[in-house]
């Protein structure tokens, strides 16, 4: 063990830091919950109510996963595999809901539903949550399915088309080939959906995560909250582990220069249908909620909007700083994990990132509070570091996975020839590997930046006084604020996020349009 640690110092240091700062707090929480003197009482308390809530959450998330994946396949095929008009733009536009906080869409859609119904009853609210969550997670499915579709060699499709029709090729060849991606989409969306609590909370629907939040925040029953959390951890980890076991090495998310030889289908008579479907999706997922927020914000003048600006402007700097720092740290840990798991087959860190990714944000938040709220660790607890640690725990897996796939696509020989030439480890990393996967690194950075910027689940649990960020400000105020103020605040966050996305996209295009690495 000692020899191995010396052999891979960067990996070992990262692993040890991750174990100390993130895994230890999570395990500590479980330990406290189990060793609690009321443990058996708490176990007995897990009665039919809790079981019902877990079932309800599971059903809700399963529905979201199925609906999102179905539309992910349809829209992913249209965008990535057909010559539908403006497909390049749809590829970007339809990703937007993934990067804005779920509560933004919840607010907008609740306004829209209230236009049609006087009151949203509980049953309808569940349907509303399924709808809103689906509009949020369809983009994730499009991304996963699209990445898989472009990686299918066009020769495979063409040889099938020589002997059968398009429909049979699609169902008999293409769909089975992207089965791992479909499964990944289902599992990941299930986990995202079951962990998300701001949408159910806003619609006033009691689900498992809102129950945990209530136990912790309202009743201060930490141990019961942790016990409930453990159930959720088990469900999520089981799903993710079985998904991993099934898909083995199949890439589930890639951003890179591959896929240039993918086959593109002309839609012919169905060109307008395809285009209409994409336009309708854009309207439903983005434009309609956006217009509704504008309408509600300015219906009674500009006062609410001005007030919302006053409240939110001071949070912009903090939000950007935390998202930037968070995404840099997640990127570093993601790269270390990806590099060592692909090149040296060191998969422990990768598995730990998967484990913390599967844990709902709210539970990570509770664990961090419990661990760091001591006199010795108060420096972390009362500063912004606790938020960064939360981001790394929750989102470290995403760049790790993206960069794993990018490194996997590099021919092994590019690294090996450098080894034979005596080029040292650091130089190989900075002069060979990083430049070759730079677009993927930048894409991973952007994605994580946006996830950190819109994070609510972890931050709401751990944010120290004075560290005000946009989602927290909106979420804490909207419980008691007039609807127009809530809408205005949400609209501002929406516009702010859109501006950031546009800026990052512009920078990405500017840098990488001529970045042509052919290997």
């Amino acid at each position, binding site marked *: 063990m000692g020899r191995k640690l010396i052999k891979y110092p960067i990996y070992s240091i990262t692993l040890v830091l991750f174990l100390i700062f993130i895994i230890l707090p999570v395990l500590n929480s479980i330990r406290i919950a189990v060793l609690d003197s009321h443990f058996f009482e708490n176990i007995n308390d897990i009665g039919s109510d809790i079981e019902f809530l877990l079932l309800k959450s599971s059903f809700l998330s399963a529905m979201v996963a199925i609906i999102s994946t179905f539309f992910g396949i349809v829209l992913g095929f249209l965008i990535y595999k057909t010559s539908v008009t403006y497909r390049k733009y749809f590829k970007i536009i339809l990703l937007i809901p993934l990067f804005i906080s779920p509560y933004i869409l919840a607010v907008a859609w609740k306004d829209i539903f209230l236009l049609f119904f006087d009151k949203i009853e509980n049953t309808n609210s569940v349907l509303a949550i399924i709808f809103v969550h689906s509009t949020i997670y369809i983009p994730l499915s499009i991304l996963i399915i699209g990445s898989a579709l472009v990686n299918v060699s066009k020769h495979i499709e063409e040889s099938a088309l020589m002997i059968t029709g398009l429909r049979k090729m699609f169902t008999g060849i293409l769909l089975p080939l992207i089965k791992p991606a479909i499964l990944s989409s289902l599992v990941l969306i299930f986990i995202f959906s079951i962990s998300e609590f701001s949408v159910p909370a806003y619609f006033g629907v009691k689900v498992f995560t809102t129950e945990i939040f209530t136990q912790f925040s309202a009743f201060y029953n930490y141990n019961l909250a942790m016990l409930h959390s453990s159930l959720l951890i088990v469900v999520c980890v089981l799903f993710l582990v079985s998904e991993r076991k099934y898909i083995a090495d199949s890439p589930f998310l890639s951003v890179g220069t591959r896929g240039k030889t993918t086959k593109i289908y002309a839609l012919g008579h169905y060109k307008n249908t395809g285009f209409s479907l994409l336009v309708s999706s854009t309207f439903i997922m983005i434009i309609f909620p956006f217009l509704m927020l504008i309408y509600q914000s300015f219906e009674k003048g500009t006062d609410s909007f001005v007030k919302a600006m006053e409240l939110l402007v001071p949070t912009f700097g903090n939000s950007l700083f935390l998202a930037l720092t968070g995404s840099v740290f997640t990127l570093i840990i993601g790269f270390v994990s990806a590099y060592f798991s692909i090149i040296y087959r060191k998969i422990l860190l990768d598995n730990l990132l998967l484990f913390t990714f599967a844990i709902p944000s709210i539970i990570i938040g509770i664990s961090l509070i419990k661990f760091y709220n001591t006199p010795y660790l108060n420096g972390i607890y009362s500063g912004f570091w606790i938020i960064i640690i939360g981001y790394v725990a929750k989102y470290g897996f995403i760049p790790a996975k993206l960069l794993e796939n990018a490194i996997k696509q590099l*021919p092994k*020989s*590019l690294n090996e020839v450098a080894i034979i030439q*005596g080029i040292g480890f650091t130089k190989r990393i900075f002069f060979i590997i990083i430049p070759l996967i730079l677009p993927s690194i930048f894409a991973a950075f952007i994605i994580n930046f946006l996830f950190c910027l819109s994070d609510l689940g972890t931050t709401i649990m751990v944010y120290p006084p004075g560290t005000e960020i946009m989602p927290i400000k909106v979420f804490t105020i909207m419980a008691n604020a007039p609807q127009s103020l809530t809408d205005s605040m949400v609209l501002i966050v929406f516009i702010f996020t859109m501006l950031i996305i546009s800026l990052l996209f512009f920078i990405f295009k500017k840098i990488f349009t001529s970045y042509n690495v052919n290997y």
Partner: protein
Amino acid sequence: MSIIKLENISYSYSEENVLEELSLDIKKNKTTYLLGDSGSGKTTILRLIAGLEIPNGGKIFIDDKVVSDDNSIIVPPEKRKTGYIFQDLALWPHFTVFKNISFGLENRKKPDIKKTVFDMLDFFGIRNFAKKFPHQLSGGQQQMVAIARALVLEPEILLMDEPLANLDTKTKTKILHYLTLLKNKYNLTIVYVTHDYKEAIKNADDIALLVNGKIQKENFSTKMIVPD
């Protein structure tokens, strides 16, 4: 006189035996062809000699010094004085031709890098391509850059993994001619992997025929007639 000696080498991958108790002597300053069908273990032998793979059993000697032992690398790849030409050439796509060749030299802090690189480019007649990127070159030019990159570090052994497989006959002949010149100039030992019997018979000093991870024939006559 042997420069490379493989002694009872075993190597398995995913529980499948690729090489079993294989022994082989490769003579100094000779061109030895490793000949065999796909999956016979030719590339694995090259990678074991280079130190990119660790044998499960047996010993590998270079210049009478043990470089790999049972499950361990004793001399790391960069210190084995070998150059490796990969099948895909492995030219770094984000570096120019000049940078591809000079990168290893910079690392070894060699004096007068510029002159060394241009001398090598001149030898191959590709000085004009110094500022080009690999994807801007033809297949033959890329081969020459890959060979130049390996030789500029003055290796004693050049390991070549079917690098000419995708070239037309004319270019292949030209590059093989360069290789003969370079071999004599630098006193090189070349270990060349191929499945092309005719090429091996024509260019080899020695041939080792591999079948299913075992040497079937070693140093057999290069005058042997090979059926089409």
